[in-house]
């Protein structure tokens, strides 16, 4: 057999048999919510595949050209070479539009899956010792994914992304003390300028994806070393792992999931239009595009920018502009909170032990309530990010809707938290006390010592 010969050829050079034997027997717990991270992983694979294809056609250049291509409505219009190459890719390259739309959809699914994965980890307390490291890496992956999503749609240099870029530039510029320098070093001058698209493009296709790939590798290696968590259940203790083996069960399922994710991305890319840049037109600093929103995953920042009152802070002769607070400080604090959460939670619950069995959301009512409140806050902000569109759709006044949202942003999370807390307590009372006691006893009897010998 060819495969056998190849395996022997490789093994006689790098000695892999022992590792392979162990790897094929690796145990993975089985639960639908454990597939969210896998969906993110496979979306990234799809992004790399489709992105490489796109890079064969895209010109990362701000040079001005006059368009004379297939798309007649823009004939004779002045635009950047980057935008022209996107038009060429969309209208002239066979399956080019499909790959481009698949790339954009895969990016949305990538970030959506990361967020869902993050929520799963948060609501089941999977970030507890020893998994703090993977929590940090995962959050960094989220930051990089958000950044690369923004960079990705910005390089198209269309009117919509151009407006987004102007806003991003204003946010970067607003950082106290270092803002102007950071902005000019990162973007090579004001925005827009000749350096804007090449800078964004280099970051988008090289630096950020390389970091993402590296961190995904570390994320998986740590997961492999620590073994996956288990939901509470029979025989599931902090000293055992229950699940299916990598070969064949997990391999088949995971491979199937890869094809399913790829298939869904293909269906979306073929059937649902996304980011039709030719409708927006090329970026032109003088033109305006009412009803403009960023991609959904940045909607919360946009919403915060719209709801935050116009407050300038003058420190003597130095200005902290109004966009700094909602545009930079707020997201920064959100991530500071997320990064520190496992360490904060240790002290709040006074639990420093190693855990491999997850907590159910109802078993941690305060944390679940708090998490839901934050999620609702984000949702309100996302709606606020499109308040002008809401106003148009509802025939309402954008000022009234904004006032309502300014109230909701405080009220809705509190109400949600209270409701979720009550639901958790109710669910705890409902669940059989016998089963509860048994699982508690099981967990206790297998508790690891809280402090490791040093």
């Amino acid at each position, binding site marked *: 057999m060819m495969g056998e010969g190849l395996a022997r050829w490789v093994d006689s050079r790098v000695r892999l048999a022992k590792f392979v034997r162990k790897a094929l027997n690796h145990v993975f717990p089985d639960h639908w919510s454990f597939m969210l991270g896998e969906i993110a992983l496979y979306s990234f694979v799809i992004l790399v595949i489709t992105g490489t294809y796109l890079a064969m056609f895209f010109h990362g250049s701000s040079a001005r050209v006059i368009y004379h291509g297939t798309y007649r409505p823009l004939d004779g219009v002045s635009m950047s070479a980057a935008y022209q190459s996107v038009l060429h890719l969309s209208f002239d390259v066979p399956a080019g539009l499909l790959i481009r739309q698949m790339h954009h959809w895969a990016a949305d699914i990538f970030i959506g899956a990361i967020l869902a994965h993050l929520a799963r980890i948060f609501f089941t307390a999977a970030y507890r010792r020893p998994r703090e490291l993977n929590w940090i890496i995962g959050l960094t992956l989220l930051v990089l994914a958000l950044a690369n999503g923004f960079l990705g749609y910005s390089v198209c240099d269309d009117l919509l992304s151009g407006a987004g870029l102007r806003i991003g530039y204003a946010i970067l510029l*607003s950082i106290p003390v270092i803002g102007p320098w950071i902005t000019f070093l990162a973007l090579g001058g004001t925005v827009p300028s000749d350096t804007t698209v090449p800078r964004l493009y280099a970051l988008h296709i090289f630096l950020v994806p390389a970091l993402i790939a590296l961190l995904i590798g570390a994320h998986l290696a740590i997961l492999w070393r620590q073994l996956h968590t288990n939901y509470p259940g029979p025989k599931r203790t902090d000293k055992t792992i229950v699940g299916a083996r990598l070969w064949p*069960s997990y391999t088949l399922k995971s491979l199937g999931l890869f094809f399913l994710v790829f298939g869904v991305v293909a269906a979306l890319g073929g059937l649902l239009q996304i980011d039709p840049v030719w409708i927006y037109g090329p970026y032109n600093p003088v033109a305006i595009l009412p009803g403009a929103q960023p991609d959904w995953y940045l909607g919360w920042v946009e919403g915060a920018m719209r709801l935050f009152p*116009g407050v300038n802070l003058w420190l003597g002769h130095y200005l902290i502009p109004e966009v700094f607070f909602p545009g930079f400080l707020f997201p920064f604090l959100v991530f500071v909170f997320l990064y520190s959460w496992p360490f904060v939670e240790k002290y709040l619950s006074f639990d420093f032990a190693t855990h491999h069995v997850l907590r159910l959301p109802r078993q941690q009512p305060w944390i679940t309530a708090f998490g839901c409140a934050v999620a609702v806050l984000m949702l309100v902000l996302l709606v606020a990010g499109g308040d002008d569109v809401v106003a148009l759709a509802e025939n309402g006044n954008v000022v009234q809707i904004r006032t309502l949202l300014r109230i909701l942003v405080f009220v809705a999370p509190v109400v949600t938290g209270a409701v979720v807390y009550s639901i958790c307590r109710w669910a705890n009372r409902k669940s059989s006390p016998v089963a509860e006691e048994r699982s508690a006893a099981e967990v206790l009897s297998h508790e690891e010592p809280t402090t490791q010998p040093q």
Partner: protein
Amino acid sequence: MTDRDERPSGSLPKVLVNAWKLYRSLVKTAQQPRTPTGAVVSPGGASNPEEAARLLTGAWIVIGASLVWRGARAVGRVFLTRPAEPGSQAAAAGGQTEEDKVRTGKWLMLGALLSWKLGKSLAKRTAETFLEEPAEGTAPPRDSAARAELPAPGEKREPASPTDSGSAGWEALRASAAAVGHTVEKVLAEATPVEDLPSTGREADRNLDREKGVNLERRHGWGTVLAGFASLAGLAGGIAFVVNFWTGGSNEALGGSLALFLLAFGVALVLWAHWLTAHKVAVEPRERVSSPLPEQKGAALEFTSGASDIQRRRLLVGMAAAGMGVVGAVVISLIRSLGFPPYRALDTDVWKRGQRLMTVDGIPVSADALAPGGMIVVFPENSVGSEKTQTVLVRVRQDLVRLPAARSSWAPGGNLAYSRICTHAGCSVGMYEANSHLLMCPCHQSTFNVLNGAQPTGGPAARALPQLPLYVDADGHLRAAGGFSDYPGPGFWGMPS
């Protein structure tokens, strides 16, 4: 897969002599009485009759195949070598022409190759039959061979394997095997038992199908049918994609067929996993995630004892720190070249006194070009269409204007000009509602009242749009009477106040 890199340079006689020596020693071992404890070690490295028998088979294959291959190659070479002088070759080759000779050589080579392949497979089959039933209770301790080779004290040798180069006998066998490919290794690998490897626990996994009494026949039947259909659908989707692609199909057709292809295969694999694979659950102990104390200490000790070999450690550390500093300086220098100082670029006054106001088409704007309620975008005459200088010109009824006293002369005829870059986040303030005299930014809906100097009246903006003072020249055209009243665009640290 043959191993071209490892082909030894040894000549044919040398290979044969080695093989013969090996063969003799192996026969000797194979004739020993089979006892589990009294392991005898031959020069060939075999520790018991079974191993010797395996080696023997390998040796036979090597010797046979090597003979055939090397012999055939030698003959072929004679025929394929071109003689130095074309004139004398016809007689030397017995009347054969050059072409005849080459053809004969090729056929000989081909024949040799075929007989070698045939011989190899025959030998392999013989070996498998020969080694099928090892005698029970004869397995020796795996490292007895290594022990007999007198390893250095403290050194732990692992059991011999075909790829190890431990003993002379193995080396000879390996060299011979490499001369003809990996035949021996493969045969030996197939004949090697795995009983003495530690268990992975797979056989102890719970079989849920059996526990729940699942009707497997039924499940496998349905699974086969459904997975088969899904696979067929996938193939159809893939073919449809290719057809669509080459016939210039629409984006929907391309995406739909590609999706069908991928989704159907995904479904087939999931069906395979759920209905055509046994449902098993493994329960395994978790290892501690932290290293045991001795390992931790060992690592630390390894580091310190290694470090103690270094002289002038403090100097090294100091040098490393200094080096790091220099690297930092180098990196910062390189980063510095990525941009230029921001403040000069940000501070540029975009309007100069006396510049005419031009439309985007480059036409100068006169004082009565707009009716009250009108709005256009204007630029200084030397930078029409530029982002930074874009200015909005509105005209209102003169009596409505409520500018501060210092700006009383800035709006001749009710013409008011403001920077068109939003002071909030830098979008173009492109919308104007003439009834309420409000300029609105489409990005975050900040509104600015043009009557009182474009003060923000709603939305997130905090600063007024900078105003451009105007005057009317002799021709009736509007001209800038100076720069903007303020810095245009979004704010930043160090912005002139």
